[in-house]
């Protein structure tokens, strides 16, 4: 069983200005069951669009996404529902993804009911089970979201996602909105759940330290494309693409102190507008290695060693 993302493109038409935003520009990646794929990139790189496409909230403009051989699209509502019971999404902000007027028990029970996984009279027990699973006191079931801390709320969101008994969990910046001292707890919970339930994760973040901590394989995205892919050790210890190198160098790290090179500028300029994509390699305008051909020929991902893929002609 695997998730197969093949040449996925996603464009949004801005009706007011008549322009097209190129969010995803040909993404191909395969996630094996039991694996954790980390996707890292800066705002506008398409990582959240990809997450939404994987759970069927967005329909690709081109290409396909298949889970266990079944294509994910929103053409057949029944199929999408069965897909949702296998693939679930946890959002970044646990404040806005829970209904403020519903007790958390109801938020979780609703998801169980929709998927019809448990007999009606057993739903209460199932909610208890899920709350315990994510490390919450079942007595919190009658609380409203505002009565819980950020970490507790994110646990509720995780419990709700797990209520559908998914195989694949897409985690879109799940700890970014939490206080620093509670992030570790949620990360540890995710790692325990992965082990105990045999889950497959797609973990999306701009925080390379978190990605590095949880992922088996890492994909680095830039302007709607994967520029480098490999095992976590390969990407972090032996990055090859100039963008990956810059991203790693820019990552603040508390374990490196008094090092003036940490404040050296590694990357000039800003990410180009996804409305007017640069020709050739989309990174060439900021790249120190760029040669004239980079502005005309778009590099494709090539294998440089044992599954370590990079899209750059100059390395």
């Amino acid at each position, binding site marked *: 069983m695997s998730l197969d993302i093949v040449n996925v493109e996603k464009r949004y038409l801005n009706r007011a200005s008549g322009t097209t935003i190129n969010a995803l520009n040909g993404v191909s990646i395969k996630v094996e069951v039991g694996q954790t794929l980390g996707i890292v990139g*800066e*705002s506008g790189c398409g990582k959240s669009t990809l997450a939404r496409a994987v759970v069927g909230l967005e329909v690709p403009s081109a290409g396909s996404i298949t889970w266990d051989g079944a294509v994910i699209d929103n053409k057949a509502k029944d199929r999408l529902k069965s897909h949702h019971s296998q693939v679930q999404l946890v959002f970044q902000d646990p404040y806005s993804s829970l209904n403020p007027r519903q007790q958390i028990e109801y938020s979780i029970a609703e998801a169980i009911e929709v998927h019809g996984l448990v007999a009606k009279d057993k739903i209460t027990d199932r909610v208890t089970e899920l709350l315990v699973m994510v490390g919450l006191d079942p007595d919190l079931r009658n609380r409203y979201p505002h009565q819980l*801390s950020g*970490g507790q709320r994110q646990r509720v969101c995780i419990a709700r996602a797990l209520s559908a008994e998914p195989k694949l969990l897409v985690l879109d910046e799940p700890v970014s909105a939490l*206080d*620093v*001292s*509670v*992030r*570790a*707890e949620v*990360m*540890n919970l995710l*790692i325990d759940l992965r082990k105990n339930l045999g889950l497959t994760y797609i973990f999306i973040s*701009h925080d*390379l*330290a*978190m990605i*590095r*901590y949880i992922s088996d394989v890492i994909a680095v995205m830039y302007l709607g494309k994967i520029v480098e892919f490999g095992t976590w050790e390969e990407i*972090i210890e032996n990055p090859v693409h100039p963008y990956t190198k*810059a*991203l*790693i*160098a*820019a*990552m*603040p*790290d*508390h*374990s*490196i*102190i*008094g*090092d*003036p090179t*940490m*404040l*050296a*500028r*590694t*990357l*000039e300029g*800003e*990410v180009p507008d996804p409305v007017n994509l640069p020709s050739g390699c989309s990174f060439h305008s900021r790249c120190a290695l760029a040669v004239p051909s980079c502005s005309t020929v778009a590099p494709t991902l090539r294998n440089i060693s044992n599954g370590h893929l990079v899209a750059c002609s100059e390395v």
Partner: protein
Amino acid sequence: MSNPLLSVSGLGISTVQDPRTLVNSVSFEIMPGEAVGVVGESGSGKTLTALSILGLLPRGVAIAGGSIIFNGTDLTKADSETMRNLRGSDISMVYQDPMTALNPVMKLGRQLLEVIESHEKLDDGSVARVEATLREVGIPQVERAMESYPHEFSGGMRQRVMIAMALLLSPKLLIADEPTTALDVTIQQQILALVSEQRRKRDMSMLWITHDLGVVANLVDRLIVMYAGNIVEAGTVQEIFTNPQHPYTHGLLSSLPSRTDKSRKRLTSIPGVPQKPWLVGDTCAFAPRCFKVTAECTASAPKLVGSLEKSVACFHPMGDK
């Protein structure tokens, strides 16, 4: 040793009605040319401490005690005229969100000139002075930028404009409240490099507020760690990062995944959630979450003791083995 540029002692901040303590007897100093970081989670009182220096506490919140001596003047006793003269010229501030800190319907050139105008008379050189400062912070096509509105710029460029605005009158102290939190990491690094450069060039003091220990690790000289309205530990960056004494600092550092940890060992988490400052009372604020807690910790509040290089407010610091 020279006199401190800023000396905060016993500073308390609380709500005016139904008094609730928000910041509890905070003391620290900033030397001329020194960069000090304040690290804390949301609600720790780091932003209120900074705002009180500028006399910009939100309505309903006021200084409840202590003093803030800046360059020989006690700012807690200064009138609004004195404070207005100080703000933007001697002490300036860069906020987290440049979009809300800039006026969206005024051209940038005009907004920057206003900063000069509020402190001195505009003259023929004023425009050139603004343009030179914009160039210094790395704004391209400065003449065009002067005629642009904030929305025409990216987040990183807007933050550069905010920094230019703060540097315009050559302040002695720059206060920065999480100015890079909303930015992407590569842009964040550009801004950190810029600020670091300008600080050295101008020999300016800096107070940098953040929740991200990684950001300040290479940016500041000394660090203050705040928790639930109290300073729990302070010291040089080297001391705090390599030899943390307070269990909270220690726990915070070991809860962060690091680039240099090859084993990816389980993160150590701090149980529970931060305490509300007004519920702390006369105890150690961290006691409910601390693994070293004893009866002593809830009987009275530990005082911050030590030197400028290293001080800690704890009855059982980590060094006590």
